[in-house]
């Protein structure tokens, strides 16, 4: 599903030495896996996530997503891949304010060619899958943090992307809501979604079926466990 080879990314800040954030990274995620990437802040995990999500481009290296090379796509083609092949979940939820839960979930579908009726139906289904069937017309400001993150997850899966990328999805939640979100990810994984999440929290990473450590721009296999 996700296959990267010799991926490099560095940043140049004026007056500073060139910083190698990712250095010859090789990494594979198979279909149906639930992988957690852990690492301290500044270790390059968000940069890796942005590249995997086609929000950012690598300086060098190959990237194959769903069996297709995507490293050299044009911005328009990358937007299409993001729309159809990837779902994002962010730490700050990034829901549109003054916009209902359903409308937030519909957002990715607005950039597709689906009919309005189809869009409404898919958004409702996605919200049901995350357990928010009774919050369809609520605004983000009327929802708890955990519920807002569920809306964001519904948005990530609404277009059946195959891969869900989550960047610190529990970072803004209390322990209890965080657990529920992780349980939801596991449910989604069990029903077929490939999930890749980054976190600095070992307890969160423990819920994944495989954990990968990133440090100083290098990936190391930390541990493998089978989901219970």
């Amino acid at each position, binding site marked *: 599903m996700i296959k990267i080879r010799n991926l490099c990314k560095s940043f140049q800040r004026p007056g500073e030495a060139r910083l190698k954030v990712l250095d010859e990274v090789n990494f594979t995620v198979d279909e149906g896996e639930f992988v957690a990437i852990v690492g301290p802040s500044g270790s390059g995990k968000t940069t890796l996530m942005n590249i995997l*999500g086609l*929000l950012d481009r690598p300086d060098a290296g190959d990237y194959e997503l769903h069996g297709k090379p995507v490293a050299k796509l044009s911005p328009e083609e990358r937007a299409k891949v993001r729309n159809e092949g990837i779902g994002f979940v962010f730490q700050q939820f990034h829901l549109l304010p003054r916009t209902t839960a359903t409308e937030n979930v519909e957002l990715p579908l*607005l*950039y597709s060619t689906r009919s309005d009726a189809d869009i409404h139906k898919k958004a409702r289904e996605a919200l049901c899958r995350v357990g928010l069937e009774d919050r369809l017309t609520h605004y983000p400001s009327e929802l708890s943090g955990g519920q807002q993150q569920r809306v964001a997850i519904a948005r990530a899966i609404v277009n059946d992307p195959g891969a869900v990328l989550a960047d610190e999805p529990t970072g803004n939640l209390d322990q209890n809501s965080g657990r529920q979100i992780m349980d939801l990810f596991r449910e989604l994984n069990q029903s077929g979604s490939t999930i890749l999440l980054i976190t600095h929290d070992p307890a969160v990473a423990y819920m994944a079926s495989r954990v990968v450590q990133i440090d100083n721009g290098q990936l190391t296999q930390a541990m493998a466990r089978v989901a219970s």
Partner: protein
Amino acid sequence: MNGIRLIDSSFRNIVRFKLRSFFMSIGVAVGVATLIAGSSVGGGAARKISAQIDQMFGPGTILIGSAELKLPDLRAVAEQMDQVVAYAPRLMLSEKSVQFAGTNQQAAISGISANSDYVWNRSVIDGRFVSDRDVDRASRVALIGTKLKEALFADADAIGEEILIDAVPFEVVGILDPIGIDPHGDDRDMDVYVPISTAQRRLVNSDVIGNGKLVVSNVDMVDQDAEQVAEILRKRFKIAEGEPETFRIYTSKFAGKAAIKAKRMLGVYIMLAAVVVLLVAAVVISSIMLVVVQERIAEIGLRKAVGATRRSIAAQFLCESTIVSLIAGVAGIALGLAVASAIAHRYDIPLNLTPLAVTLAVLASVLVGIVSGIIPARQAANLDPVKALR
């Protein structure tokens, strides 16, 4: 995003942020209102002025004004020129008090002759015009304008009643055609016409007439005829070659040209004012949209993350500024019409709203919307989603 979704989401944003949309709209609304009000009032005013000039001049006429002009001068001109088919004097007096049964009005008094209805293009709607007999005998008869009639008599019949002009009694014999306010701003429906001989003897005691009008047979020759009139008058007034003339001559051709020029100038000024306001409006919308882009960085980043292309982000902001501007334009048309009809009502001008002005207003507001949206849309489209989502 397809067109309908774009328009739908633009409308939602416009409604969601009402105050902001309002401030974005003001400039365009005022600019379009200027255009609409200016062109409908201006067009109406120009039409009215043309009508008044037609009324004053008519085709193929020559107007003479001079402080020396007396009736024999006018007669001499008419007798020496075969092409003059009719002529009539007009003595204009300063405003005088006109009284009836204790009601007192100030009114402009004119001395006229029996053929003035034809030559000066103004007749009566009720009663009779001044006759040759009235002029020969210097009868104390008067024609009054419709507004003066109303001011003095209200609904009662005025014909046959006796009014006092400067304490001299006159019998009202006719009511003049209503022609409204002239280009000088004088209400011609407050006029009083009396036989010229009566005016000269009873009201001013002078044989000067001041104004005369000639009707010539060939409309196209009116400028050449005017030269000949000037020649005759120079001789009669004994003005040597090179000395300044003590009379002024206007022709219907000259007046028509002046009216066209005035109309053009008015049009240019209105356009200029509207363009300036719309330019300012574009700057206002543009700067507010730039702030909106800054405010919505996270939203733009998110939209890009879920699959919005640069083009669809740009289209969203362009669509929003264009719709705001278009709505403002429509409001501006309504506002302009309201202002125009208020002015038109107040100054008794016909309203002249052309389809061209409305089309122009709509096009201008769409153009302002698009132009002012370009820079913000480009900025939004170029946002790096990684930075935008941070």
